[in-house]
Structure formats: C-alpha cells, structure tokens
C-alpha cells in the first residue's frame, strides 16, 4: 500500500530530522532514493535545485514532490502531513515537560551529542550527490565543466556569500551554453 509507505517514510524523516534543512537531506535521500527507489539520484538533485528556488523548507518540498510522483495529489498530501505529524506530537510532549524545565539535563546532553554528527550528515549528503549522473563530464580531461561549476559555486557561496538563487541561475545558463 503506497500511502502507508509514504506515511511511514515521511513520518520517520520528520521524527529523526534533527538539525533541520540540510541535515535532513541525507536522511531523505537514503529513504527515497536508496531504500524505496521512488526517485533516481538525478531527480533528487533536481528537486534540491527546485527547492532552492521556490519558497519553503527542502523537506516539505521533497515530501510534496515525492508524494506527487508516487501517488498523485493524494500522495503529496499524505507525505506532507506525515512529515509534519511528529512535530505536532512532539509539541504536546514539549508543552507538558520541556517548558517547565528548559535547562533539562537530558535534553542538553542529547543535543550536545547530536550537534557534531549533523555536520557529518550534511557532508554525506553532498558526497552522495557527487556521482556520474550529476557530474556528467567529470574527469581529468579538458572538459570537466561539472567540477569547475561545482568549485566556482562553492567559492562564490563560501567566501563571497553570493545568493544561491543567483548561482543556480548562472549554473543553468552555463549548462545551456556548454552542453
């Protein structure tokens, strides 16, 4: 039953997605691409690009998109609700316990441990996307434009804080000219 699968997968992502946004990418990718084969790695990279250009969180964008691809509009509603459900349930718990005791020892140690791991999760997401499908002409020849686009985008964002939307637009124009 595909709706139940969508519900299960996106509920799990919503529940375990600590660190938000980018840290959730490898989690989503693992479930959607590797475990359930709902999308190829290429399609997943396209959704990430679209997410950068449309409003809203990457996780909601992916849930809506995957849900639609797998089971139409109903599917996208199911996946998006499933993603938000753990947040709603957790809120009830937090309202009961956490707000009374913000310096809670257990929560503090949990977060202290999870924080460094988030960097690793994001790193893995980037590494997993570096494959032949996303870097079409990678190699040591003269035509390794993919690597150049990636390197230039990295430098532009990391050191010069250029708006990601501008970078995506420029990369798209480069793609149209080069390929």
């Amino acid at each position, binding site marked *: 039953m595909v709706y139940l699968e969508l519900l299960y997968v996106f509920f799990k992502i919503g529940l375990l997605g600590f660190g938000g946004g*980018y840290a959730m990418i490898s989690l989503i990718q693992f479930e959607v691409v590797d475990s359930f084969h709902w999308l190829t790695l290429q399609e997943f990279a396209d959704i990430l690009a679209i997410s950068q250009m449309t409003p*809203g969180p990457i996780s909601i964008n992916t849930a809506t998109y995957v849900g639609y691809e797998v089971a139409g509009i109903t599917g996208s509603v199911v996946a998006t609700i499933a993603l938000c459900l753990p947040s709603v349930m957790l809120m009830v718990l937090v309202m009961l316990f956490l707000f009374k005791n913000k310096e809670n020892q257990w929560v503090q140690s949990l977060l202290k441990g999870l924080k460094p791991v988030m960097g690793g999760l*994001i*790193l893995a997401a980037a590494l997993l996307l570096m494959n032949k499908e996303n870097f079409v002409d990678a190699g040591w020849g003269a035509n390794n434009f993919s690597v150049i686009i990636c390197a230039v985008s990295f430098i532009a*964002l990391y050191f010069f804080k250029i708006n990601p939307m501008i970078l995506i637009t420029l990369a798209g124009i480069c793609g149209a000219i080069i390929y």
Partner: protein
Amino acid sequence: MVGLGKLFSIFLQIGAFTLGGGYAMLAMVEQAIVEKHKFMDKDDFWDLIAVVQTLPGVFAINTALYVGYKLRGKSGALVASLGAALPSFVAILLIATFFAEIRDNSWVERIFKGIRPCVVALILVPAIRLLVGEGIKWKIIWIPLLAGFLIWYLKVSPVIIILITAILSLIYGFFTYKKIEK
C-alpha cells in the same frame, strides 16, 4: 489578542517569501510577531526559538506551531502551521505537474546538467561551515567525519547513526550528571 485569520495570513506570507527555508525565515517571523504587531516580547520570542531549534522535524513548521500555540492555543498552532506549509506545498505541486512534461526537453536537460554540480556545492558549504565552525575543534572533528564516512561509503542508514548518537549522548549525560550531583 491575535485573530486566527491574522495569524494565518502572517504565516502564509512568511511561508511564501522564505527562500532557502529554515533560518532565513526567523528574521521575518521576529519582524512580524515582535516588531510590527507586538504580539510577543523579544525575550519570550527568543526563548521559544531556543526550544524549537532543538527539536527534530521541519524548523519552519515547528516555529509556526509554537508561536501559534503561544498566541492562540491549539487552533493558533494549527492555523499558523497550515499557513507556513501551504505556499511551498502549492508551489511544488504546480512544478511537479509541470516539470514532468518538460523534463525531457533538451534545453531543460542541459540547464539541469549545469545546475546539478552547483547544488552539490550549495550543500557542501553548510557542511564545511558546520565542520570548521569558529575554528576546527580537533578533539571532536572525527565525529562528523566518521558519521559522514559511514553514510557515504559504507551506506549505513542515517537513521541508525542518529539513534546510536542519541543513545550514546544520553549515556554520557547520565554519567556526567551523577558526578555533578555528588
């Protein structure tokens, strides 16, 4: 008291104009809730955000839920989170129906060939920022590197990594807690 319709429209606007998601929206929420409408004072707002940041799940939805709840209870939480989620839901739904039609167009294909390596860079940047932080902490740098390696190279599920980390952190917390008590 804030009207439910007002709450919905505030978060609808925030949902519609937040690009890149997550933290980018915080400034907008603060501007609307604290500065402009004065529904909440600054300290209350940031106390709330401190809690929300630590929770799993979609950050934008969590923020909407808690701010909505604080202002108007359960119905406030519902209305605010619906408002925050709706724009991205509708936008992606439109794109999904449209994109499937044009994906095989040779122009679109070429454009996306250029975009994909750029997306990798966009994800690499926050990863490196998190790893380097305000200076590399040599004592713990192996933790993210190991986690990244396990997921990327050995194909370990991130779910397992998160659960194991959570358990280890709680055990560590348990032992250090005892020491403090004595």
